């Protein structure tokens, strides 16, 4: 495989002929008996001698879009491949099963052996459809869709506890959570003891405090099963603060790693080789309690959003040695751009007429951050039982406001809080400062189409952008916020938050 440097040099060589190869694995071509085959498409004729038959029918629509989100919602990448189907030559593809098949896309020159091609996309097929008489379209999405699944479907009926006549889902707790309501799994009859409550279905680090209507009580704890047994019957609502799943981890990256590796449908789980959180250095402590049916993507989104970050699965991963490897999960922290720029964008690589300001982000003159989530709001607790804790409000808050900015931007100063799963006050303050530095000054999304030499740019990369327009005559640092790749031409539309 060529290195990134070699590919960029080739892309700038006059007369090169780009060829995009698409390898699709395990397409079901026949149901009885079930037959799975690999299918190969190309954008240009590619007759090599490795016995792979590339069908040269990619005629357009070979693109893929990825983006970050300022509100922390997870934004999956999506794209398409258009296949020429003149005269219905490939109508039989409609009978194949393409859904969720892994697809890899490679870029190289028509004169190169396949081993020299470099991977530019590693994702999944959503499905194949026909948009008109002469075109078939394969929709693509990134591997994040493998997380679009419930964390767990394990319920009480699968256990030996006395309450196994119920279908209630067993709870899961990751990191540290305050005042959660554990699930009553046994009324004491099967174990000939007190009532048994579960806060995490599996080995847990342990409980911090158990409360009966807010009043701390003594219990018998079993950390191997994430349960505790009451020593006397309950007087009111049983709640607890606890540290969950082991091996214990209470950072955003740590909990997401636990979720994507160990939960959801087994074939969709990620391996260590598919996760790359090495560059994500935010170690703020968080926790999440899942007692209802919870989507893994939603849980990851809540965790990442807590530190103003996004979980993405870029098309490919650039390794330190200058080679490209398969797509890996990545966390991108949205903060004021700083550090060394990985790429420099200038007029020399911007396509004429493509530069524009596509979004102006609102100034935030007031910020309110919620943290230390109280999972069980209790307004009727007798005063004085536990005076240091306020059970009646869902969150604690960290605030920032700037009256000068409010005056400048005619802002009335009211704001909805940014909900987080942070649990430590000082870290909530740090997070607040980070968001203040990012949003208390004008921010723009500068979008332009760039020559193929920037085809390896990734979401979250710190870049430097300079142009004769939009006050960019002095280079500004920015963070790559959106990407739209056209693999047929190699051109790439990049949105940079400056």
């Amino acid at each position: 495989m060529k290195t990134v440097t070699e590919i960029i040099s080739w892309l700038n060589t006059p007369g090169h002929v780009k060829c995009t190869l698409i390898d699709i694995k395990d397409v079901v071509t026949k149901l009885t008996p079930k037959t799975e085959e690999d299918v190969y498409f190309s954008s240009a004729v590619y007759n090599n001698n490795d016995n792979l038959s590339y069908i040269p029918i990619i005629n357009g629509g070979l693109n893929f879009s990825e983006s970050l989100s300022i509100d922390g919602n997870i934004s999956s990448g999506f794209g398409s491949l258009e296949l020429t189907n003149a005269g219905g030559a490939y109508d039989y593809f409609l009978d194949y099963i393409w859904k969720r098949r892994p697809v890899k896309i490679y870029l190289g020159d028509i004169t190169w052996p396949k081993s020299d091609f470099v991977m530019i996309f590693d994702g999944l097929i959503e499905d194949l459809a026909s948009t008109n008489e002469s075109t078939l379209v394969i929709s693509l999405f990134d591997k994040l869709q493998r997380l679009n699944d419930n964390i767990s479907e394990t319920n009480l009926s699968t256990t030996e506890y006395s309450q196994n006549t119920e279908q209630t889902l067993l709870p899961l707790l990751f990191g540290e959570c305050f005042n959660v309501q554990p699930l009553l799994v046994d009324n004491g009859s099967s174990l000939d003891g007190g009532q048994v409550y579960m806060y995490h279905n599996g080995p847990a680090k342990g409980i911090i405090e158990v409360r009966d209507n807010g009043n701390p009580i003594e219990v018998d704890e079993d950390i191997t099963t994430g349960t505790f047994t009451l020593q006397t019957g309950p007087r009111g609502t049983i709640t607890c603060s606890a540290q969950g799943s082991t091996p214990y981890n209470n950072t955003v990256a740590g909990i997401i790693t636990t979720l994507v590796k160990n939960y959801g449908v087994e074939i969709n789980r990620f391996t260590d080789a598919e996760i790359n959180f090495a560059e994500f250095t935010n170690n703020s402590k968080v926790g999440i309690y899942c007692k209802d049916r919870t989507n893994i993507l939603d849980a990851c989104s809540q965790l990442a959003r807590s530190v103003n970050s996004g979980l993405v699965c870029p098309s490919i991963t650039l390794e330190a040695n200058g080679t490209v490897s398969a797509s890996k999960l990545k966390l991108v922290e949205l903060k004021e751009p700083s550090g060394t720029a990985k790429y420099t964008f200038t007029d020399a690589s911007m396509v004429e007429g493509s530069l524009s300001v596509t979004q102006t982000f609102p100034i935030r003159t007031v910020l309110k951050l919620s943290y230390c989530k109280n999972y069980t709001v209790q307004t009727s607790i007798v005063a004085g039982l536990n005076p240091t804790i306020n059970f009646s409000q869902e969150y604690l808050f960290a605030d920032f406001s700037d009256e000068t900015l409010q005056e400048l931007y005619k802002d009335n100063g009211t704001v909805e809080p940014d909900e987080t799963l942070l649990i430590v006050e000082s870290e909530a303050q740090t997070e607040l400062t980070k968001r203040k530095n990012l949003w208390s000054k004008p921010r723009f999304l500068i979008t332009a189409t760039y020559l193929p030499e920037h085809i390896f740019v990734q979401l979250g990369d710190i870049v430097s952008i300079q142009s004769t327009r939009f006050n960019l005559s002095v280079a500004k640092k920015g963070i790559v916020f959106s990407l739209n790749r056209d693999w047929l031409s190699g051109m790439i539309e990049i949105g940079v938050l400056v």
Partner: protein
Amino acid sequence: MANLRVLYNNLADSATITASSTVLGYAIANVQNIKKTSVHRSAATTNTVTYTLNWTSDQKINGVALPATNLINGSTIRVTLYNSAGTLLADSNTVAACKDKNPELSVAYTSNVFPYSGATKTSIWFDTLYSTVRRVDITLTHANSLTSIDCSRIVCGNYWESTRQASNGITVGVVDNSIITNTRSGDSYVDRRPTIETMQFQLQYINDKDRKTLLEIMKTVGSSGLVYLCIFPDNTNPEITQSYSIYGRSQSNSLEYALYSLYNSSLNINSW
């Protein structure tokens, strides 16, 4: 001197074809479809390949053409025709096949560059029509040793030859679909895309017999079928023969009544 010849009814598509060697994945059946990029590839253990075309009934043949190969200057072709008894009817002997088509792309010269003006054309024309042909052997020898020969298509049949040569002003061209993008700084960037060849010419004052044949070709082949057309079939310079040959589809052809029993035609061919 021969006038322009047109092969419009390809008998090779109804033949049973075998090749003396084949690389797995590049079957000889590929020469019987109309995809330029779908090729037969001979083994690189030698630089020669022989295609043998067999029919179960007698065929009328006097022209054989290969519209896209990776042969280069110095490569040769030999075509022999046989009847049902295996008796040799005609032998072209070994002759030069072509000249390099696109030197720039000749380093790794395979069918991968066919869409980028990289294919060479070669043809053999017999002055006599043989009506009892059961077998045709086509032997190609690449100028480079130990080189696979890629061949997209075999065309053979009974050609039509105009009684008058195409008028002066024959125009050949190349339509390059490459996309040129300019940057804000004023540089340009080229995204190279496939090319097609074009040919336009006039046939002036053709007789009534030619008019009828030409009209028949227009109606039966039209724009949907492929024809192999060679303006200078007997030129001793294979580069001239190749440059003024085209395999493609006719576009917006017309016949003009010029004088009593004399007709003009304007032909416009785009390559496949």
